């Protein structure tokens, strides 16, 4: 297929998963390069999953200094002050991830997502942005889209027991099995900018409320000049007011987004570890699918809410 064979060591280590996705997919995984930023609980779970799966390299970007708050749902940080003092989250997580699979090259890049130019992103096949502002997501997504090679772009957020994944694979071809036949399929994705500016009115009513609620919170944080996740229960009246305005602007009833949901999201500044495991698991699976070209990738949002237990895919794009 790709001309190269897996080594005996790889075959032994990856035996059980090669039985799931095949040797060709495993080879493609081992040649892929993944950039990850914002390493909180869900992203830590995701990193563990792709390192175990055997991607070629993982590059970590997170200059926050490790504090006690950072352990919350992140098992990659050991609570040993002597070990983490003065180190960044990326550095500490890098050490832990290396141990999970010596065949994967894990490294740290300094700096902030927004300071890196287009050339920086060229090195990667997959870019995953955790817990970023609306503006940063937009900017990085645009940079990725300007490259001639396709970079698979993902954002992920977890607030309390809820989570959101956004996927942009641009134009994506994949194969799927249909009644023992392999069929070629093609998907066209909207950019992040396009996907979050779709007018609400035509969106089907059954669409996950989380899509709307997350947009409200995002816009609230942007308007207040806050970092992603920086809100609390005391912000609820303001958030609720903004919701009303946005709903009016979109000509939908403000009942479109229940206040109880917004309340859970603004209060959820500490992550709920089971939700992190679930969302990080789905994200890992999607990235593996995108790299291997096997199986239908999700388009273009995924939502999980531990309250009702549903994990839902929503396709939100401006349909021509």
């Amino acid at each position, binding site marked *: 297929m790709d001309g190269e064979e897996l080594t005996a060591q790889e*075959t032994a280590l990856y035996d059980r*998963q090669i039985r799931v996705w095949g040797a060709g997919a495993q080879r493609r995984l081992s040649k892929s390069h993944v950039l990850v930023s914002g390493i909180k609980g869900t992203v830590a779970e995701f990193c*563990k999953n792709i390192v175990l799966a055997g991607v070629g390299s993982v590059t970590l970007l997170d200059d926050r200094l490790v504090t006690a708050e950072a*352990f919350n749902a992140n*098992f990659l940080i050991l609570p040993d002050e002597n070990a983490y003092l003065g180190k960044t989250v990326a550095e500490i997580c890098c050490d832990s991830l290396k141990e999970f699979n*010596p065949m994967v090259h894990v490294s740290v890049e300094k700096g902030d997502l927004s300071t890196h130019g287009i050339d920086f992103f060229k090195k990667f096949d997959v870019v995953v942005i955790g817990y970023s502002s609306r503006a940063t997501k937009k900017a990085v997504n645009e940079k990725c889209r300007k490259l001639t090679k396709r970079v698979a772009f993902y954002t992920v957020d977890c607030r309390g027991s809820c989570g959101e994944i956004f996927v942009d694979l641009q134009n994506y071809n994949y194969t799927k099995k249909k009644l023992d036949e392999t069929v070629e399929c093609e998907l066209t994705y909207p950019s992040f900018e396009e996907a979050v500016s779709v007018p609400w009115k035509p969106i089907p009513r059954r669409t996950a409320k989380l899509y709307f609620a997350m947009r409200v919170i995002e816009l609230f944080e942007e308007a207040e000049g806050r970092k992603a996740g920086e809100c609390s229960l005391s912000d609820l009246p303001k958030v609720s007011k903004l919701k009303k305005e946005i709903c009016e602007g979109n000509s939908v009833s403000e009942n479109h987004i229940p206040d109880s949901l917004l309340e859970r999201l603004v209060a959820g500044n500490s992550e709920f570890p089971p939700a992190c495991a*679930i969302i990080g698991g*789905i994200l890992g699976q999607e990235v593996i699918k995108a790299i291997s070209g096997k199986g239908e990738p999700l388009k273009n949002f995924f939502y999980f809410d531990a309250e009702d237990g549903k*994990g839902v*895919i929503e396709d939100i794009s401006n349909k021509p």
Partner: protein
Amino acid sequence: MATQEQQSAIKGAKVLMVGAGGIGCELLKTLALSGFEDIHIIDMDTIEVSNLNRQFLFRRSHVGQSKAKVARDAVLRFRPHINISSYHANVKNPEFDADFFKQFDVVLNGLDNLDARRHVNRLCLAADIPLVESGTTGFLGQVTVHVKGKTECYECQTKPAPKTYPVCTITSTPTKFVHCIVWAKELLFAKLFGDKNQDNDLNVRPNNAASSSKEREDVFERAEDEDIEQYGRKIYDHVFGSNIEAALANEETWKNRRRPRPIYSKDILPESLTQQNGITQNCSVTDGDSMVSAMSSLGLKNPQELWGLTQNSLLFIEALKLFFAKRKKEIGHLTFDKDDQLAVEFVTAAANIRAESFGIPLHSLFEAKGIAGNIVHAVATTNAIIAGLIVIEAIKVLKKDANKYRMTYCLEHPSRKMLLMPVEPFEPNPACYVCSKTPLVLEINTQKSKLRDLVDRIVKAKLGMNLPLIMHGASLLYEVGDDLDDIMVANYNANLEKYLSELPSPVVNGSILTVEDLQQELSCKINVKHREEFDEEKEPEEMVLSGWTQSPATNGDNASTSNNENAIDVTESSSVAEIPTKKRRLSEFQPENHKKEIEKVESEDDDLMEIENPMVMSKKKKRV
């Protein structure tokens, strides 16, 4: 989400985890992160290289060590102040009795076999402790909640039966590669290297009385001074050549079937192999070394490569030679083991040669190993997702939030947009012999079946009892235990060899037996119906038990406990069940807080799934 109430429920909880494997590693991590402070974990297994792609608490340097202990130590590194107790032991050991289970608030299963799942289910029922059960295969998984009296127990619904193949398909008319694997593993391998006293259907079915069975038996006996290669060629020619030729003589069989081609070694292999590559003699490996490999002595490197008839024939002879040259002591008591390289090589070669003969596509060693070893497909992501779902259910159980219990399916392809699909749990099944104590019916020939047959094939194999006791009225027919005196043991042993109708208290048509397992605290009644005739192909055990869930057959990682002698068993890894189509719901009312939300949102959004299209989850077993 993390309310005060929830945090204190988590903090004060004492939980038992059974299994520290794929799901177990993820589960222990997520429990610790979620704030659980008193976790006990049981696992009898030790770590293997093929675990490391997903059991992320383990490293290469841990291979061979206890999973439970290494997992504990790894999690204590990032949560040093919690209490984790590990037990490197089988959950079926007598020390883990109902009293042991009673100390916990909830039991969480991350097991890989039906047998242990059933055992834990019974202990949870006996101890009245809620159980959260789980399973994964590839991208599929599920989590279910079992609370005595509130939701169904693990054994309320029939589990997918382990796949069995009619004997004649295996012995005479294979049409799929798996048939050739079963033949190579259960018949040929067992015949050559296993217990010589076991019944074996290796030869062509006795349609042709041409050659006496005695004559055939002798083929497999190797004379003391017989050259190993000559012996190997003799076996080869017998099973792939003359046996096929003999079968062809029976025209009736081939009327509507493709005729197989007899294959003889002289047509495939050169006159003498030893001169050609002289491997066996030069091999430096020591006797009994489990790393002995015919592949490496033949210079075959890639297990995923498809080898032709010649290479498989060379592999067959070489593997057979190596067994006699290097592992002679084990011959006579070997059983097939997927981790035994030489056994896998032999079975692959034999299955491929047979496949060639029957016009069935050949397979690589990697593929053949998966089929022969019933290897469960497994990835880290599904286990992580399932572990997260287990913790969510466990928290509901601790909060006694019974209206919110869900069973959740993790799907590979979305169904109604969902990848994670919650379903309201079912009520206990009133016909369940485990949790509702409904009597079973056994059809058996009471004059021709011995008590031993009943104990082995029904009480142990089908009812999954560990330490059974059998009573007929007030008369004790059989029991197992450490505290029995010699007279009783002698008495029970004598009973085992008696026909049912000739027991001290004769068991005949209409008799009601009481069968108990004191450890599982399970007791059930069996109504006996005498029956003279059984269908040899369909009912090879000559007993039919109704009102019972399928037999405990294990998959992959554990030793087989199936004592099916007549039917040939191939267990599919059936940890993931079907999405049920029935609507036997736990409650018909909407939980209070859902009501509120629904009113406000005027939404048609249904919080609970009702399955409309029966979706069979068993697509899982894709062959690679």
